[in-house]
């Protein structure tokens, strides 16, 4: 599997300043993983996310946010570990 340059782990809700900071540092060879309140981005009609986007299933299910494969690849914690290994660098925002 092709490695990612950077995995960005984003647990901030879309209104948090860290959310914007993270997105402004994404590039095409990176991956974005939404966790915790970050998964609210999938329910936020005002947002468009680009590139390789992942979201933690447990956090979506907890919040009753529907999984939408057209926006994000929904993964479990095992796959989250695999992503941290597949990336050369991991940044938690």
């Amino acid at each position: 599997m092709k490695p990612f340059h950077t995995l960005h782990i984003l647990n901030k809700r879309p209104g948090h300043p860290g959310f914007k900071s993270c997105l402004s540092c994404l590039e095409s060879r990176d991956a974005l993983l939404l966790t915790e309140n970050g998964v609210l981005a999938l329910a936020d009609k005002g947002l468009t996310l680009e590139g390789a986007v992942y979201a933690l299933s447990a956090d979506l299910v907890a919040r009753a946010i529907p999984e939408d494969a057209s926006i994000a690849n929904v993964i479990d914690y095992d796959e989250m570990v695999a992503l941290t290994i597949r990336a050369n660098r991991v940044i938690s925002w």
Partner: protein
Amino acid sequence: MKTLVIINQAPYGNWSGREALDMALSLAAFDQPATLLFTSDGVNWLRKDQQAAAISQKSVDRNLAAASIFGVSELLADHQSCHRFGLDDHTMIEGITLANINADFLRAYGHVISLS
């Protein structure tokens, strides 16, 4: 491998920035290359003439003086955030280099820490 420690919260309202600074100082103390970046609300660390005794805290500009003495290689500030908060040569402490925070900028750092 270079480490970037990002301070994105203003001083005094909470301890997050101080704890980020301690991380940068510890890296420097153990001879690990570390750069400190102030962005977002964090640029307010850089204002001249802070008098935190008024709220029973120590002013952070002294801690920043320690940073370069300890060996933190660079103190950087996000250009846009400085503009947003009205920080320029007259209002900012010395020794700060402006930078643009984006993917290009981050590429140089193998390890990036952003406490919240």
